[in-house]
């Protein structure tokens, strides 16, 4: 499917620039051109498709759905799935949290949404397909959704409401099954397209620098680090690799677009994929800046429990990835 891009990259590097095949610099450049083109095309497609889905399921509709319907345990899975199709910027996590609480949605269900949303989204999916192929992408998406679901169930079982900050408890006390009726916009797809299109361009513009830098770093590592380099330090049998990678990743923050190209090279050079993905999930899903934001609504103890449970689930899925893939 992407052979033509490889042909273009080969032509540019070996013919137009007249570089020698096999040279580090030539290989690095070739890899960079091929990867960037392929990934940008995939990102465009996935972001566009998700934009359409999101236009029909805006966040308010999601909240109302979760707040109104009795789902007999499936609400965690639903919240997690909604997290996939509903993008939100990390600075919205607090208003979103309050909005859910106010709508009478259980804390655990809210967590399911908050956990999955940054882990599995249009950007992550587009990059994953480009870098690792369809099969790994599907496994990643499924495990991301399950991770959000299971973490949410566990967090609900722990009955954490007492650890919310006082003003949030007040909100919780006055929570009601939804008040405002969502005015369904009856627009045709054709009417929606201009707005979706603009949003797609905006998202792409926002992430392109990260993707380029990520791929450039990836390209450099690709050309200069010998195959199997990391294997000496982190092989599959090293039981501590996954937890160490995850715990190192938690305080760091980057979005999926910056970290994934680097992860791909790590995998190509011998780091087991489960370990690499656990690292990535830690970076994307949890971060120090996010913890700072959440301090407005949660006590430190609750943040610690939240991070602890999610970290544990990431470590477990890292092990599972290493076994399955």
């Amino acid at each position: 499917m992407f052979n033509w891009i490889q042909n273009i990259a080969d032509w540019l590097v070996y013919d137009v620039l007249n570089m020698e095949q096999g040279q580090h610099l030539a290989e690095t450049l070739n890899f960079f051109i091929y990867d960037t083109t392929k990934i940008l095309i995939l990102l465009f497609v996935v972001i566009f498709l998700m934009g359409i889905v999101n236009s029909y399921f805006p966040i308010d509709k999601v909240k109302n759905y979760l707040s109104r319907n009795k789902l007999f345990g499936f609400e965690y899975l639903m919240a997690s799935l909604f997290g996939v199709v509903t993008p939100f910027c990390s600075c919205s996590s607090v208003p979103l949290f309050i909005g859910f609480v106010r709508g009478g949605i259980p804390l655990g269900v809210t967590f399911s949404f908050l956990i999955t949303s940054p882990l599995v989204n249009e950007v992550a999916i587009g990059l994953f397909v480009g870098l690792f192929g369809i099969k790994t992408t599907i496994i990643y998406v499924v495990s991301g959704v399950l991770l959000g679901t299971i973490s949410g169930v566990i967090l609900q079982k722990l009955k954490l409401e007492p650890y919310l900050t006082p003003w949030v408890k007040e909100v919780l006390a006055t929570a009601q099954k939804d008040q405002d009726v969502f005015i369904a916009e009856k627009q045709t797809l054709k009417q929606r397209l201009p707005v979706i299109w603009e949003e797609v361009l905006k998202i792409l513009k926002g992430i392109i620098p990260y993707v380029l830098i990520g791929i450039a770093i990836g390209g450099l590592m690709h050309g200069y680090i010998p195959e199997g380099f990391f294997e000496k330090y982190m092989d599959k049998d090293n039981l501590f690799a996954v937890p160490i990678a995850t715990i190192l990743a938690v305080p760091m923050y980057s979005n999926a677009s910056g970290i994934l190209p680097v992860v791909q090279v790590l995998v190509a050079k011998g780091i087991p994929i489960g370990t690499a993905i656990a690292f990535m999930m830690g970076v994307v899903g949890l971060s120090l800046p996010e913890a700072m934001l959440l301090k407005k609504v949660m006590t430190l103890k609750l943040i610690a429990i939240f991070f602890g449970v999610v970290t544990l689930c990431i470590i477990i899925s890292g092990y599972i990835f290493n076994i399955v893939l």
Partner: protein
Amino acid sequence: MSKVIKILGTGCPKCKSMAGVVENVVSKNNINATIEKVEDIMEIMKFNVMTTPALVIDDVITIKGRVPSKDEVLTLLS
């Protein structure tokens, strides 16, 4: 009649760019309006929005969760 514009957002990059767009439109078109940035999360939640930034004109939420274009803001204000 002076319009009251409120920009809701906790200070994320998107909120800042929304403020920039609105200020630009207001000054360029000589619109009679006051712009207020609402950064306190408790205040923001009174408007019942779940995604920031949000643009409130005369107590009506007009845009939420995204940065509008200048034309869009101009249409909303006129």
